[in-house]
């Protein structure tokens, strides 16, 4: 292990990799600090660049970008009461109320410090959990992978925000999109309508750029909002009293980071859900919970730790099983597949140095978050002053060129546009788009493993339920679907008895 760590550190410290991490960090801070632009959009627009990079800088760019963007979302939340990314929404009211009391520096200082601590704890959990799970997953066959993917898809629907029916529609759309092209059993072209470009299937990258980049442009040109900055001065005394705040809430930070990691591991649930759940848990446990929402520092400390910790958690299923923990890791899996690297337990045997390099990058990115985050806070006025009238056309242009760059094909630009319109229309009606992404990524895994299994056993479907790990995973999927259904029926019964 020692030689892997040394090899990984020297790999990460190569000037080219360091420069990539630095550029991606600045990019993440910029995008995260602009309300309306999400970390997922930033990741989707980063993909065309990662396409031309080696695996390590590609992964390092995504790690650094997401760590910075999730923190940077706190900046406009505190200064203009608009979360830069959905992950900062849970504690926006507290942040803004404290800013109005003249404590913008303290709020953002807590944001950057606790994000870094949460991110580091998340990285430690990733380092500890991933190899253990990978060892366990070595015995998995197509049956287990089938159920694992089903569990991932189920979790994406059940855990994602909004109605479950809408989540299922979104998921089915993603899965159906994944069936376009040559099928794996007979090589039969499905839903291609004689179009040669469709025989290879819908390319994941333009689809992502459309769903997260172009739909964001649509949303922003529709809901243009003037930013009202709560304070005219740049936040000062950012780290004043920080040690005592961290000491006071140390158990809260630890608890929230663990919650963040666990939620991050669940497919479909990312940093934003981690922040909301942590907020609710902290409110219930805190003696001052009744003051939350009016300008209290505790929910900020805990939720901002959780959302950055969730990032490390989301990488666990992505690296170990190839099942994305959130939309960003879904994009990551797409990037790795493009590079011929299939995430899964084998990668821990075949590419140990690369994996250790990812852990080191997580650590480095979260350490870098403190100085770079400090600079972003100091220059927040300048970042928030960038007009979207100038920015949005270039996001669109990057989306077009990024989609084109993958295959040098205008067909992919068309795919991007269609997916952008689709994502916009669905989200405008409360249909989550994250399940579409998971459907596109996991669809081939579900189908391939199912078909391999049934052909192997001559269609003896009992094999799916009689293998011990398979049975446990199947039970997990049943419980995941059963619990919300049971709660719904119980609620309905109690409301009927009340009205009766």
């Amino acid at each position: 292990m020692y030689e892997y760590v040394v090899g990984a550190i020297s790999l990460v410290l190569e000037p080219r990799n360091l420069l990539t991490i630095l550029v991606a960090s600045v990019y993440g801070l910029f995008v995260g600090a602009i309300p309306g632009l999400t970390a997922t959009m930033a990741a989707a627009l980063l993909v065309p660049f990662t396409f031309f990079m080696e695996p390590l800088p590609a992964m390092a760019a995504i790690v650094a970008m997401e760590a910075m963007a999730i923190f940077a979302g706190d900046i406009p939340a505190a200064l203009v009461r608009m979360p830069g990314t959905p992950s900062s929404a849970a504690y926006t009211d507290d942040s803004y109320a404290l800013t109005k009391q003249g404590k913008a520096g303290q709020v953002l200082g807590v944001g950057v410090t606790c994000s870094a601590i949460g991110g580091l704890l998340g990285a430690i959990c990733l380092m500890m959990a991933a190899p253990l799970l990978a060892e366990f997953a070595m015995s998995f066959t197509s049956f287990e992978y089938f159920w694992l993917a089903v569990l991932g898809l189920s979790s994406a629907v059940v855990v994602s925000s909004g109605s479950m029916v809408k989540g299922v529609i979104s998921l089915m759309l993603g899965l159906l999109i994944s069936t376009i092209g040559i099928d794996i059993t007979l090589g039969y072209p499905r839903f291609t309508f004689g179009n040669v470009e469709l025989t290879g299937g819908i390319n994941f990258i333009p689809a992502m750029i459309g769903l997260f980049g172009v739909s964001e442009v649509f949303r922003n040109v529709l809901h243009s909002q003037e930013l009202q900055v709560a304070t005219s001065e740049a936040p000062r005394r950012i780290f004043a009293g920080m040690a005592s705040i961290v000491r006071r809430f140390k158990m809260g930070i630890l608890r929230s980071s663990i919650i963040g990691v666990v939620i991050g591991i669940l497919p479909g649930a990312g940093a934003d859900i981690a922040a909301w759940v942590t907020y609710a848990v902290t409110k219930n446990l805190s003696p001052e919970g009744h003051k939350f929402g009016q300008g209290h520092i505790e929910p900020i400390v805990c939720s901002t730790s959780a959302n950055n910790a969730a990032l490390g958690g989301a990488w666990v299923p992505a690296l170990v099983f190839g099942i994305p923990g959130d939309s960003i890791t879904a994009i990551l899996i797409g990037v790795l597949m493009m590079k011929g690297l299939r995430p899964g337990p084998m990668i821990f045997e075949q590419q140990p140095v690369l994996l250790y390099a990812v852990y080191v990058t997580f650590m480095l990115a979260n350490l870098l978050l403190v100085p770079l985050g400090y600079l972003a806070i100091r220059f927040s006025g300048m970042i928030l002053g960038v007009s979207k009238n100038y920015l949005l056309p270039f996001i669109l242009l990057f989306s077009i060129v990024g989609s084109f760059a993958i295959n040098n094909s205008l067909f992919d630009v068309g795919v991007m546009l269609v997916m952008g319109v689709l994502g916009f229309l669905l989200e405008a009606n409360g249909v989550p788009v994250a399940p579409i992404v998971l459907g596109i990524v996991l669809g081939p895994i579900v189908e391939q493993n199912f078909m391999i299994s049934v052909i192997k056993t001559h269609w003896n479907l009992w094999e799916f339920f009689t293998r011990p790990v398979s049975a446990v995973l199947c039970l997990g999927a049943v419980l995941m679907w059963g619990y919300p259904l049971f709660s719904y029926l119980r609620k309905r019964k109690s409301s009927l008895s009340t009205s009766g």
Partner: protein
Amino acid sequence: MRIGELVIGGVAFVLAVFVFVLTLGFPQLPDGHPGPGLFPQLLSIIMAITGLALIGQNLSKGERRIRGEGKAEGREEWVNILWVVGAVLCYMLISEIAGFILTAVGISWVLMLRLGAARLKGLVISVGVVLFIYWLFSQALLVPLPLGVMGH
């Protein structure tokens, strides 16, 4: 009742039926078991059921939610969306002929003006950023962006 949700439910149902019908023409495995059509068939059945469920959910909510559904956006903001769609279509249609630089400057500048940016500042920024994007993709990443008339 939300019209948008009803439409999504309806489209999901129709799409599911369409997919199911298409899959009926897919071949079976040599041993007679279901083949390429199996997975999309299962998906289309689930999608049809959820599409109907979404319609049912909305109809059962009745008239209660029709009010208060009004969006703050005006006609102008919705037209902005059409401009964005038009910009992408325009790029797809003319970039091969006019080349990346001219097309990109054109669409980004027009979109900026549409969104309320200053004319000269918008043009200067457009030219600068497009040249940077061209250098980045074409020179650094070796993506063959179309040169069009500028290549002759």
